[in-house]
């Protein structure tokens, strides 16, 4: 595959010299024209375009946006709410920050189009607490949009009204889980709700039908409303349409955010050609492709099997470098595209120490309502921390795996999976390193980087 060019749709104006986050600049660049067009359309027609586009949610799960909207209970007579999930918290992910800071009106326009399509009269942007400037920028931008008649009462003289308020989180990762987010917006602890019956589309905010969409997803809706679902579906690859923003961090020469057509670039092209390869004198050891909960990939391993290309089943034999960066290919090899956060580790990293870092995160962030997750994440952290700072034992690998295996499928929300996948995959891919850590740690160079 030739190295593709970046295709910046969402990030079109990010880092553009002279581009500012005020409404004048946005309007000068064609802003709110799509909203003006959208409010002349039938709401159902917009929903149909989003369905046609094949847009999949960019928050992590990759659930089709049109299907999500299709599940909304429109017969209950209750108000429908839309919540923008701007709680960007999955380690390795940092795309929404730039949209919010540099191009907030793009998000507001996408939100208003989505609200109009779904007959929403009240939307909230749930932004994480650690982005105070982002919250202020959004509040100012919403006020500018209100003053110009794009948000609030009687939008563009159509008689349709919808307001947006910004709601700040307070440092809890679990608020990114949509039902936890809803609980938090109701003023409670962010304990996720059990599904069924509490599917947000039916029983969401205040027990009303609720749509929760990621920042990037809503920006894509704006593009779809402008160009149509078919045009969007032509970008990317089948079932993985549109562009994706990859956030690359860790041990590469040029970390950062890169927007490509989904599935048109491989992991190898992204890391070597786009990000400049490993740091001087180093080689790549492992990469986490979709936020820290995604299962790790080990450089040198091969993925083989059959996959569907159109109607045919074809053989594939990929190294890490060959894997196309799309939802389906990454799922096929046993990991996930998740939130697009690519974390790279080179040969200086010890995998026990890297896992100890990740386990400390998930242990800190478990909401605590389900025993397997609360206790399991804690024990995985304790074991890996002890291995690094105390006595490591050969049998720790087996012990860790036994704890991790007892969590997934036994919790209310997907955090159970999220916290166990790192341990399961690190042990599966780097089991030897865990078994011999009690020996190798003796030879740990002084001054080596601490990870936990």
């Amino acid at each position, binding site marked *: 595959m030739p190295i593709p060019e970046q295709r910046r749709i969402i990030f079109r104006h990010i880092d553009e010299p002279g581009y500012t986050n005020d409404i004048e600049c946005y309007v000068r660049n064609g802003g709110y024209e799509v909203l003006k067009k959208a409010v002349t359309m039938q709401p159902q027609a917009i929903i149909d375009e989003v369905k046609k586009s094949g847009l999949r949610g960019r928050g992590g799960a990759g659930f089709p946006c049109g299907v999500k909207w299709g599940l909304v209970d429109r017969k209950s007579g209750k108000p429908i709410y839309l919540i923008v999930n701007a709680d960007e918290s999955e380690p390795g992910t940092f795309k929404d920050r730039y949209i919010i800071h540099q191009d907030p009106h793009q998000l507001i326009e996408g939100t208003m189009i989505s609200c109009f399509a779904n007959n929403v009269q009240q939307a909230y942007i749930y932004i994480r607490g650690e982005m105070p400037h982002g919250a202020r920028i959004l509040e100012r931008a919403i006020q500018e949009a209100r003053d110009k008649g794009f948000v609030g009462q009687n939008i563009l003289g159509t008689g349709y009204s919808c307001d947006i308020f910004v709601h700040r989180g307070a440092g*809890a990762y679990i608020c990114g889980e949509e039902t936890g987010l809803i609980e938090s917006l109701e003023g409670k602890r962010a304990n996720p709700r059990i599904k069924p019956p509490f599917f947000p589309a039916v029983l969401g905010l205040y027990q009303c039908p609720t749509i929760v969409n990621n920042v990037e997803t809503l920006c894509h809706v704006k593009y779809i409303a402008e160009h149509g679902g078919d045009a969007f579906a032509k970008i990317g690859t089948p079932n993985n349409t549109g562009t994706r923003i990859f956030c690359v961090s860790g041990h590469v020469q040029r970390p950062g955010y890169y927007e490509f057509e989904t599935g048109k670039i491989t992991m190898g092209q992204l890391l070597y050609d786009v990000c400049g390869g490993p740091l001087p004198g180093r080689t790549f050891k492992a990469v986490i492709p979709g936020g820290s909960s995604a299962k790790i990939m080990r450089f040198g391993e091969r993925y083989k099997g059959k996959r569907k290309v159109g109607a045919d089943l074809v053989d594939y034999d990929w190294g890490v470098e060959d894997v196309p960066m799309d939802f389906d290919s990454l799922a096929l090899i046993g990991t996930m595209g998740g939130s697009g956060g690519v974390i790279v580790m080179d040969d200086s990293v010890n995998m026990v120490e890297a896992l100890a870092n990740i386990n400390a*995160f998930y242990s800190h962030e478990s909401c605590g309502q389900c025993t397997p997750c609360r206790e399991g994440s804690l024990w995985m952290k304790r074991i890996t921390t002890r291995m690094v700072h105390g006595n490591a034992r050969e049998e720790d690998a087996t012990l860790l795996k036994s704890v991790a295996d007892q969590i997934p499928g036994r919790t209310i929300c997907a955090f159970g999976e999220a916290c166990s996948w790192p341990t399961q995959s690190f042990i599966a891919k780097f089991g030897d390193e865990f078994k011999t850590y009690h020996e190798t740690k003796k030879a740990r160079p002084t001054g080596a980087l601490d990870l936990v």
Partner: protein
Amino acid sequence: MNLKPETLQRIDEVITHYPSKRSATLPLLHLIQEDLGYLPPETFEWVAAKLEIQPINVYDVVTFYPMFRQKPIGRRHIKVCRTLSCALRGGYKTCAEFEKQFDTKVGEISPDGEVTVEFVECLASCGTAPVVLIDDDLHENVDCAKAKQLSDQIKKEAAQRR
């Protein structure tokens, strides 16, 4: 509760954003904390009365979210990111440098009362790791040299105030 008039005004305004008053719990706690620097014990009763809920409901929230604190902190709040992408780029060294600069330990107020250094989870700026949030401002690519530079700046501002 000795809140500034503008805080009270903003509290009354933010309650109108929600059909249910209880939803304003987090916003109110943020506003009170911004005004007073922390959430004193009377917060629970006060917010509960304002939102027509029980004090335990407020306590529940304060003890769940890491950003809410029930004790004062130093004049400046330094939050160093601890999570993987920052750690891979030297986040632990950065945190140690701040501790050294202010002769303090993570989670404690420095002896001069100037800063509280905290080691927090992912700040969502992994591409410019290691990152540090000082009060409301994000600082990127904070290696030890930059940590020292930021510390010197804080010390300079402190000296000017005295």
